[in-house]
């Protein structure tokens, strides 16, 4: 009898791998995005099994809640022609495979070395049932407070760039502003013109 947690782990990872596979094989980009959402949910489940509550909830809240909405909008905005995209798949395959191999090699060099992994970080004196979120907060708001503030600057830049790039007033917009309509004054609409009184010309004689 395997442990319930192990069973859950295998369930989450199996669905995760299948969903990730569908992300790159789905014909419709919108379906690919939805499979990516499924993959994120399962990754969150895996993190939850590792007792990383904060990361799991952040993954669901930020990635599923916000980033994937953005992805969906981008996919819908681009109007991708899937048939044209698939043209020349086989001719690009060797180069793509080479780059992919190179990246896998680089990643294994970095991740496999002593920079990452459990050995790279000195074990913190944390008991098994300590709150992961609190532990994270203690480190983030003391040792890493500068990167934390830098993150806000990066986000500020992102807001400004997004506004600069995408905000445009379209000419000929006939939208009505109800506040302006309500606040309109009499003088805005009619103009009283002073002019000399006109007198009817005297009637012609003999009529």
């Amino acid at each position, binding site marked *: 009898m395997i442990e319930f947690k192990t069973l859950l782990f295998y369930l989450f990872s199996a669905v995760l791998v299948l969903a990730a596979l569908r992300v790159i094989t789905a014909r419709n980009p919108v379906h690919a995005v939805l499979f990516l959402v499924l993959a994120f949910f399962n990754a969150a489940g895996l993190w939850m099994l590792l*007792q990383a509550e904060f990361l799991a909830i952040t993954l669901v809240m*930020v990635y599923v809640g916000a980033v994937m909405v953005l992805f969906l909008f981008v996919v819908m905005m681009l109007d991708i022609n899937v048939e044209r995209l698939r043209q020349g798949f086989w001719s690009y395959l060797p180069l793509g495979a080479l780059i992919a191999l190179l990246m896998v090699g680089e990643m294994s060099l970095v991740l496999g070395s002593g920079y990452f992994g459990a050995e790279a970080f000195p074990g913190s004196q944390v008991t098994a049932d300590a709150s992961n979120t609190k532990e994270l*907060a203690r480190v983030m*708001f003391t040792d890493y407070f500068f990167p934390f*503030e830098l993150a806000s600057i990066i986000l500020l830049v992102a807001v400004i760039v997004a506004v600069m790039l*995408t905000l445009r007033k379209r000419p000929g917009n006939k939208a009505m502003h109800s506040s302006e309509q309500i606040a309109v004054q009499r003088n805005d609409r009619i103009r009283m013109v002073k002019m000399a009184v006109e007198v009817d010309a005297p009637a012609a004689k003999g009529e």
Partner: protein
Amino acid sequence: MLENYFPILLFILVGLGFGCAPILLGRIVAPHKPDSEKLSPFECGFEPFEDARMKFDVRYYLIAIIFIIFDLEIAFLFPWASIFQEIVNTPAVKLFGFIEMFVFIGILVLGYIYAWAKGALDWE
């Protein structure tokens, strides 16, 4: 700790079942006799003019990215709130921990003011 999350797992399972069961039931029980007319997309009785996937306005992108940024801000507020009691009760970091978060929020509010002043939040 994990047993606290068991109700959520249960919720996911029930939700999955609730979503999938009617579809499966419909597949199994309902009569299934497709023909080309039934399978073709229906648009008020005439042939559809164009693809259903039309281009979205780029403005939705702006809304989404502003949403991401403030969503992230909230994500950072969570750990801060969870140790807030500790921050306040420790004299050494009392002011520092408090101001730190407000500097963070303040910088993001600058972006918010910018977006508002530029009229990015208006929907013409």
